[in-house]
């Protein structure tokens, strides 16, 4: 980063973060822990999580926002981390699958996935669970049709969709189970 860009970034009166080709300072709170990082502008959140912070729960499936394996919660909202440049998220709170629950203290949706056998190979599962947690928080799903439509951004090549919907419906607490 150039001197001029740094001085702009450090001016609290008028924050214009800027870089000539180089790194940009970014503060992210990831699973409750603050990280102060210097990040190149072209690094995606997914690559930052996996390659730099070694949080490999979030998966790289297609890397184009088509499969949902990289889904995380950014300020509580589910998004594809492969399509977010990390520099744009300065100040954000990010929750990955590692932050939802731990062995012995699972998030209710993690427990429901086990209960309903909602996966086979497991590769899509972290994204499915983060997406499901986002869906529940959004509060727009009542029925099985709603859940299936609102989970269409998460592909499962093993085809565990029926059980994934069952797991989410259980945590939603609705009766629309088949």
């Amino acid at each position, binding site marked *: 980063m150039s001197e001029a860009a740094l001085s702009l970034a450090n001016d609290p009166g008028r924050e214009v973060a*800027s870089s*000539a*080709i180089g790194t940009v300072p970014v503060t992210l709170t990831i699973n409750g822990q603050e990280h102060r990082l210097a990040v190149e502008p072209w690094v995606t959140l997914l690559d930052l999580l996996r390659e730099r912070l070694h949080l490999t729960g979030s998966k790289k499936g297609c890397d184009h926002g088509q499969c949902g394996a990289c889904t995380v919660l950014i300020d509580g909202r589910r998004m*594809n981390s*492969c399509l977010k*440049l990390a520099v744009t998220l300065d100040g954000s709170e990010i929750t990955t699958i590692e932050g939802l629950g731990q062995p012995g203290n699972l998030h209710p949706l993690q427990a429901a996935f086990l209960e309903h056998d909602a996966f086979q190979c497991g590769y899509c599962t972290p994204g499915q669970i983060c997406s499901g947690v986002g869906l529940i928080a*959004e509060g727009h799903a009542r029925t099985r049709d709603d859940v299936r439509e609102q989970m269409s951004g998460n592909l499962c090549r093993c085809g565990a969709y029926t059980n994934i919907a069952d797991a989410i419906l259980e945590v939603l607490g609705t009766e629309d189970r088949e």
Partner: protein
Amino acid sequence: MIRFDYARPTEVSDAVREGAAEQATYLAGGTNLVDLLKENVARPTRVVDIGRLPLAEIGETESGGLRLGALVTNSETAYDSRVQERYPLLSSAILAGATAQLRNAATNGGNINQRTRCYYFYDVATPCNKRNPGQGCGAIGGVNRIHAILGTSPHCIATHPSDMAVALAALQAEVRVTGSDGERVIPFADYHRLPGEEPWRDNTLKPGELVTAIDLPAERFTQNFTYLKLRDRLSYAFALVSVAVAMRIEDGRIAEARIALGGVAHKPWRRLEAEEVLVGRAPDRAAFDAATEVLLDGARGHGANDFKIPMARKAIPRALEQAAAGTPQSQTDKRLA
């Protein structure tokens, strides 16, 4: 991914100054642009992150409509109670597109500025006049199942992929933009353009101009509307043919009808002559078929997309029937209403 430098202005005036630079591009939600950066289709030397500009509010306009900030997300817009009550067609069309994750990231400005999903535009190993002017069009005579049947040119048969834009066309929204020459307002019908001789231009923005808001007029269509989207799978697929209808019925006669098509042209497709055919008539199949013929006049397939013409010929009267009956298409239960 290619290398570029980065700016994150917090005021519109700073953003527009940054955006005026050669080879600069604005970045909002990133759901399309980041993908294009990865594919080497977008090759900016400077990315101007507009995510911190104060454009993330929905508010009232002086003329009784709603102003949708350019940075309000598609999700926030679709589920906003004012939008749902006053412009249910817009809410429905947004929810017909993409996925929950993408709608949570994608913004209103970004939605109307997204690029075509033409396979040849995305594949830098193939010719494309939109990506590389003068290179030729791979889709003409190539694989063109998803391509346009109306308003094409010998240089480009790409379609505009947005669902939201189809509803905005029917609602006659306006796009507010700011550039180095100041602010101006573009009627939605004039915002996107047909490919013509310059297929690399998707819209009528001048270089460096920034979309700041989309204004919805006071006129609401809350009873007689629908967004009918036909696609290869039931969710998360671009439209092969989509139809937005906004209608007003008085004393059993059609007082006003607006029809916009998606998936068939380089911009949301409207033809006012087709809408005029309906005015004063009873909302019946004969009237709907007559309007459909005018709307599709001049439609031409390119081989693999020939099916879109009979598909549109069925979808348009079906959508008009849904709107007239007050039974808009559900975006959850995909059985045709």
